[in-house]
């Protein structure tokens, strides 16, 4: 059966974006043929197969298949021994391009569709609902497919973990899919082999162990939240009762604990070191609810709103709009907000939204939690959290407790995912005592199939190996050689296993030690299913045939279970056929694929979690260091190490790219005589790692934070040798915080770190404006820097009679998650430039997030401000371009004509926002064929010497415009969504027609919080900002 013809594209995709919503089915004639060939190939078994292969190879179809689908497999995709920059790789590609030019290229015929698939209109993308599995959940996506290749992922509004938003990691998955460094072939001891050979080997192992009921056979996977895979594993364990299933992932989530937060009901939130606005399985939906609760709006009648729009110095009265339907909708007032206390040591992204951030060491958080619990009268039995709090935190604590008690049932205490179970127990006790359970927090049955303590499970595996009880180990999508706790010494244990097989997307540190490595299919290439953070199941459907013949875990387990190779499509469909509710299964199946969620599959409510009574180690005495481990904000635990979008994404807290660093506070740095970029050696009980220092304002004193995901040795050209490996310091007794035996020593030399923002303060310019909530309630008005008078000009103003596009950025909603940056990169083919070029300040992100500190060096407030082209009405860049390569459109866009640009860069000099980006070199990779598929065909791939910048996703505007003109109507508000806006989990970015007073953007611009960046320059930006409103606790202000 063909896998592709069963894809069900979104029919209602013009709800999200009007980019064509054809009906019928998307299928390609060629793909049916391929599948037929594939089936013929795969129907063969055993030694006869080789005969039949030759027979098959004689057919013309097969020859085509071989020629076209798997060209020139690289026999040995050796990783370079040393670090290579992106440019060097490009140089190599260029040289190789020259080499290939010497050989005669085979004739390639382009054959159009003889019968075009019903739904496919060439040039118009189709959208398919699928989901990206993450640790403990999933992100539902609508994948954009251009003529059969997925180019971009967007959030699925019907998916509970996405609600239409998308995070940066999910966004970056398309690059992972097309990554030329992905594992491309089955390897046996490093030599090219194939799936059939592996199957034969696996079947031999299976037969051997079946005789012993599976004794000695071990399976190692991450926690499984795919119902089908879980069922397959259960089948496997039933058939082989002596076999064991081990689970490991470095996130080490607390097993069986699945709290759900309901920020829509929470007026006071206390976060005990939780980064709930940027991390964790359900954070997109949490951020949305949190921002909605926080948003404040001034109620306006249509008349008031119109007046406000016209009074604004930069808004021109719309003219010639006789047929325009004026607003009759009022803006409802919402002047309640929430309050967030963030108690943490390592600055998180969430801290940007905090009204009060209490800076204590990460190891002191349990003590704070215990004292806070005592103050609100909560009891957590068996939990002991010793330690004294710093004076400031101790003084603040009663006020927080008082605030919590004043909001019984509408408050929420969240324990951070990297805090020990004791803190979770305390948080639960507090929520219980405050009557929040059932209102702001509920508990669901776990999403994972059989939750176990990952650390214990892995430790068991290692001790079993050491005891000689493990004969064969099959590892699926894990990399314990890289990420297991250091003292387990997994590498030497692994070498003792007789049969080692590894299924993974990349050849990595683990796979190189295995007898067999099998490339794993990316989730966009295969069928599967997955549970969201609330348990809702999504069927994962493929967008493309596996690029490199990847194998799905379902396939591998099917071989183990049945001895036969089955397609993942059949496996997943069969599972659901046996479990679908009454009625026609095809209807159920089509519906599930179309919607991207299987209805009524959310987890059942669970009772209050039972935590083991635990004691927390005392924080080290002042002057002694604690060591905090965190996943890297960009590359995570290592899954995105080889993803250059993630490498180049500025980490929110530091704006640093392409490296991890040792974060310490300014005071600690001073005490230890360290400076940013000094190389230090961290010693944790004799385990040593060297890395560069980053002095981070707001970090707790006497504390050191290091991030995972770097120091890779075998994964790909992008990641190898970049940064240092913090896993080497991590031991099982201190998975997140090491409180003893930590020292730090400066060693010779410095190490250059590349950042995108050097100046951290606002330098008396106040680009980021903040109102205090009481002031806001009194006057609603954002303070103006200078009195700005409208520009005087002799020429008549241009009247925007049609559309007048504009955007608004609600700084009160923006949490600084950076999802928009990656969304923009994916949508607009924005190239990566490499560390050296970032260091030379040539990063290409069209959308940047400025990060500012306010207040003291030690404990500043942290603010994020998205900045992209403002589309100024009187754009300074347009005036100075000698060739007219940047011009204004009739609807007010500041357009960039790439093929007219000669590259004088004058426009950038004259841009007060410095949002223009220049191709100093040929940054776009023109030579790596696998990346061609990634490109958005609606956006030019820029060449060297050309200026580029944000143009409000003009390709989306025009797609909608053409549709609306065909239907002879105006574009509806919300019909066009910018890539950044679409990704945003908090609705902080809103695009629309300012001429339509009924549009969301116009309503927002009529809010008194509205201000323009650098408005005294009279550039009249089309993108404006809504000032942040901080809801400080007056009692704490006095403290």
């Amino acid at each position: 059966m063909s896998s592709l013809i069963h894809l069900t594209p979104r029919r209602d995709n013009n709800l999200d974006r009007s980019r064509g919503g054809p009906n019928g089915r998307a299928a390609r004639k060629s793909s049916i043929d391929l599948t037929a060939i594939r089936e013929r190939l795969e129907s063969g078994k055993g030694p006869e197969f080789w005969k039949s292969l030759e027979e098959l190879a004689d057919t013309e179809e097969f020859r085509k298949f071989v020629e076209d689908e798997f060209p020139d497999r690289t026999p040995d995709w050796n990783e370079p021994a040393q670090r290579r920059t992106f440019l060097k790789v490009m140089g190599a590609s260029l040289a190789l391009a020259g080499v290939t030019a010497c050989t005669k290229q085979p004739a390639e015929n382009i054959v159009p569709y003889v019968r075009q698939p019903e739904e496919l209109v060439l040039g118009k993308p189709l959208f398919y609902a699928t989901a990206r599995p993450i640790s403990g959940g999933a992100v539902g996506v609508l994948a954009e497919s251009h003529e059969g290749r997925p180019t971009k992922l967007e959030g699925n509004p019907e998916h509970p973990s996405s609600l239409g938003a998308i995070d940066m990691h999910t966004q970056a998955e398309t690059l992972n899919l097309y990554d030329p460094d992905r594992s491309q072939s089955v390897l046996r001891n490093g030599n090219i082999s194939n799936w059939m050979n592996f199957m034969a080997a696996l079947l031999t192992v299976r037969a051997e162990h079946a005789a012993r009921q599976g004794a000695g056979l071990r399976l190692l996977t991450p926690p499984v939240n795919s119902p089908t895979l879980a069922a397959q594993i259960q089948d496997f364990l039933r058939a082989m009762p002596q076999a064991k299933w081990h689970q490991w992932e470095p996130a080490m989530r607390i097993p069986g604990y699945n709290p759900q937060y309901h920020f829509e009901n929470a007026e006071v939130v206390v976060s005990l070191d939780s980064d709930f606005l940027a991390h964790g399985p359900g954070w997109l939906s949490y951020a949305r609810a949190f921002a909605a609760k926080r948003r404040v709006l001034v109620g306006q009648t249509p008349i008031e709103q119109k007046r406000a729009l016209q009074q604004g110095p930069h808004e021109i009265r719309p003219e010639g709009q006789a047929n325009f339907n004026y607003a009759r909708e009022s803006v409802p007032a919402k002047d309640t907000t929430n309050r967030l206390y963030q108690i943490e040591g390592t600055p998180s992204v969430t801290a940007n939204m905090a009204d009060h951030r209490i800076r204590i060491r990460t190891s002191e958080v349990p003590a704070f939690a215990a004292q806070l619990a005592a103050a609100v009268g909560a009891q957590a039995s068996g939990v002991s959290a010793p330690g004294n709090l710093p004076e400031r935190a101790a003084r603040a604590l009663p006020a927080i407790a008082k605030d919590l008690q004043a909001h019984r049932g509408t408050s929420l205490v969240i324990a951070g995912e990297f805090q020990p179970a004791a803190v979770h127990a305390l948080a639960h006790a507090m929520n219980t005592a405050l009557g929040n359970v059932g209102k702001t927090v509920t508990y669901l049955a776990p999403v994972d199939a059989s939750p176990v303590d990952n650390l214990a499970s892995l430790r068991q595996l290692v001790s079993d190996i050491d005891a000689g009880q493990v004969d064969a180990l099959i590892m699926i999508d894990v990399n314990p050689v890289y990420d297991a706790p250091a003292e387990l010494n997994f590498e030497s244990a692994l070498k003792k296993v007789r049969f080692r097989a590894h299924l993974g997307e990349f050849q990595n540190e683990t796979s190189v030690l295995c007898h067999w490595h099998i490339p794993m299919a990316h989730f966009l290439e295969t069928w599967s299913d997955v549970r969201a953070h609330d348990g809702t199941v999504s069927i994962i459907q493929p967008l493309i045939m596996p690029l490199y013949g990847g194998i799905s875990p379902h396939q591998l387990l099917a071989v183990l279970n049945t001895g036969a190779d089955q397609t993942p499509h059949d496996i997943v469909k069969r599972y659901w056929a046996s479990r679908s509710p009454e009625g026609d299964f095809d209807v159920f199946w089509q519906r599930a694929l179309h919607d991207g969620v299987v209805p009524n599959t959310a987890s059942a409510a669970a009772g209050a979690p039972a935590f083991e009574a635990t004691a927390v180690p005392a924080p080290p005495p002042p002057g002694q260091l604690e060591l905090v481990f965190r996943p890297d904000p960009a590359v995570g635990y290592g899954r995105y190490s080889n993803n250059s979008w993630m490498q180049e994404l500025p980490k929110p807290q530091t704006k640093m790219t392409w490296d991890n660093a040792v974060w310490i506070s300014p005071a600690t740095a001073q005490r230890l005589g360290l400076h940013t970029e000094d190389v230090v050696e961290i010693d944790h009980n004799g385990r040593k790692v060297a890395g560069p220092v980053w002095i981070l304002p707001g970090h707790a004193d006497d504390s050191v934070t290091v991030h995972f995901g770097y120091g890779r040795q075998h994964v790909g050209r992008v990641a190898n040798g970049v940064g240092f490996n913090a896993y080497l310091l991590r031991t099982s007794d201190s998975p997140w915080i090491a409180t003893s035996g930590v020292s730090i020593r400066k060693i010779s030399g410095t190490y250059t770190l590349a950042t995108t923002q050097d100046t951290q303060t606002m330098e008396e310019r106040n680009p980021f404006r903040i109102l205090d909530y009481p002031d806001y309630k009194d006057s609603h008005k954002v303070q103006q820097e200078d009195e700005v008078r409208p520009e005087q000009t002799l020429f008549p103003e241009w009247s925007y009679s049609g559309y007048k596009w504009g955007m608004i950025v609600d700084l009160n909603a923006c949490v600084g998650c950076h999802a928009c940056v990656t969304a923009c990169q994916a949508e607009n083919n924005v190239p990566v430039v490499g560390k050296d070029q970032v260091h030379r300040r040539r990063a290409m992100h069209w959308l940047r997030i400025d990060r500012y500190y306010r207040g003291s060096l030690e404990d500043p407030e942290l603010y994020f401000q998205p900045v992209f082209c403002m589309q100024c009405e009187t754009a300074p860049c347009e005036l100075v371009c000698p060739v007219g390569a940047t011009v204004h459109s009739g609807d007010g866009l500041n357009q960039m004509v790439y093929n007219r640009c000669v590259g004088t860069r004058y426009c950038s000099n004259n841009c007060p926002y410095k949002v223009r980006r220049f191709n100093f070199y040929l940054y776009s990779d023109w030579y790596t064929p696998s990346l061609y598929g990634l490109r958005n065909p609606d956006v030019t791939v820029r060449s060297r010497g050309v200026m580029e910048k944000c143009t409000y996703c003009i390709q989306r505007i025009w797609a909608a415009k053409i549709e609306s003109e065909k239907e002879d109507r105006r574009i509806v508000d919300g019909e066009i969504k910018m890539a950044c806006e679409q990704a945003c989990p908090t609705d902080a970015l809103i695009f629309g027609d300012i001429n339509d007073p009924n549009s969301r953007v116009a309503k927002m611009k009529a809010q008194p919080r509205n201000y323009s960046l650098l408005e005294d320059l009279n550039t009249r930006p089309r993108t404006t900002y809504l000032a942040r409103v901080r809801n400080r606790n007056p009692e704490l202000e006095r403290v």
Partner: protein
Amino acid sequence: MAEEKHSKTLTELTPLPPTIDPGPEEVLGPGHNYDTVTAKISNIVFLPLKRTPWQLAAVFVGAFALVNMFMVAVAWLFIQGVGVWGINIPVAWGFAIVNFVWWIGIGHAGTLISAILLLLKQDWRTSINRFAEAMTLFAVAQAGMFPILHLGRPWLAYWLLPYPASMWVWPQPRSPLVWDVFAVSTYATVSLLFWYTGLIPDLASMRDRAIKPWAQKIYAILSFGWRNSARHWQRYQMAYLCLGGLATPLVLSVHTTVSFDFAVSMLPGWHTTIFPPYFVAGAIYSGFAMVLTLIIPFRKWFHMEDLVTMRHIEACAKLMLGTGLIVAYGYSMEAFISYYSGNTYERFMYLNRMFGPYAITYWLLLTCNIFLPQLLWIRSIRLNVTAVWILSLVVQTGMWLERFVIVITSLHRDFLPSSWGMYYPTKWDIMTLLGTIGFFLLLMVLFIRTLPAISIFEEREEVHRKVAHAH
């Protein structure tokens, strides 16, 4: 002034009349007649290769090496892109623009001497005008390369010209860069015409004095059949005067237009109304410095102290002092207005110039352009050739730094602190700058040895005037 055909042998070219510097009052040494000035100037060209002063040969070798380095730098630039330079966002303009403005400024003295001093009937312009005009042309040639080299896509530089493209797209006339194209190309054209027109009678003299047949032929072609008739002279003088009139506004217009590149923008430090006059003054300042830098060794190596006298040198030094004071006024006004405006960005910009990361360049600039040149108030220093020569180098350094300060320190910290950054030139930046200096010197050396570096016929006019005055 009829001239006979000479058929002198090489040995007859020497000895030349004794070289006596007549001092700061005279523009011509004693003992010269029509014949001796003609012989003396043309002999620079007709000197056998082996008797070229070794210093000139050394300059040639050095300059040639620099030109080769320039070729390498430009080739690498074209292969790789402008990324080989230190430019970035926010500092999108770097050495290329600094050098462009610097060279254009140097090119100003030629026109000033040729045109304005011609119209003002300054006798001391005679011996140095040809030299200064050549210097102008060569400096403009260096300057003209930079706007093209600095483009992201230099092969499309012709898009800045208003040619009838099939798509009917024209340059965007509001951009100062388009004005620049016209200003610089006009200036180059008029300078070339002016220089060449002035050369015609001398080329005829060279034709007549050349010994080798091929040399005679070349000079004959270049002299456009000049026969020295009275009618020729009558028309020639009129044409020369007209060209002088045409060139005069260019002295003001070119650097004014170049200053618009900055003044039209909205960047603090660039957006300044004082820029046009202060740029013109600065240009003349550096132009005279370059004239002095070149002519002082020239007169020494070729024993031309009787033709290029202390009067010339002192006059140039005085002009340098005068324009330097205008420039100093410009700096002080810039600083004052940035304070007086009360504008956050302007004030910050100036404080950043003075005390920011590039403060050293600002204080060096003040030292070179304002403090040290005040020594020229002292007559003995004006009359000390070595001191004047060193000061001329100091001023040129200062003027280069001025452009660096304007371009870099304004750009590197503008409005939003988040986009502030630093600019560091790369070796390719430096190689390109040195390469153009080499190219310029190479052209000067070739000019000295192939064309009369001092106007022969105008020197003969000086002799005539002197004789007439004597009577």
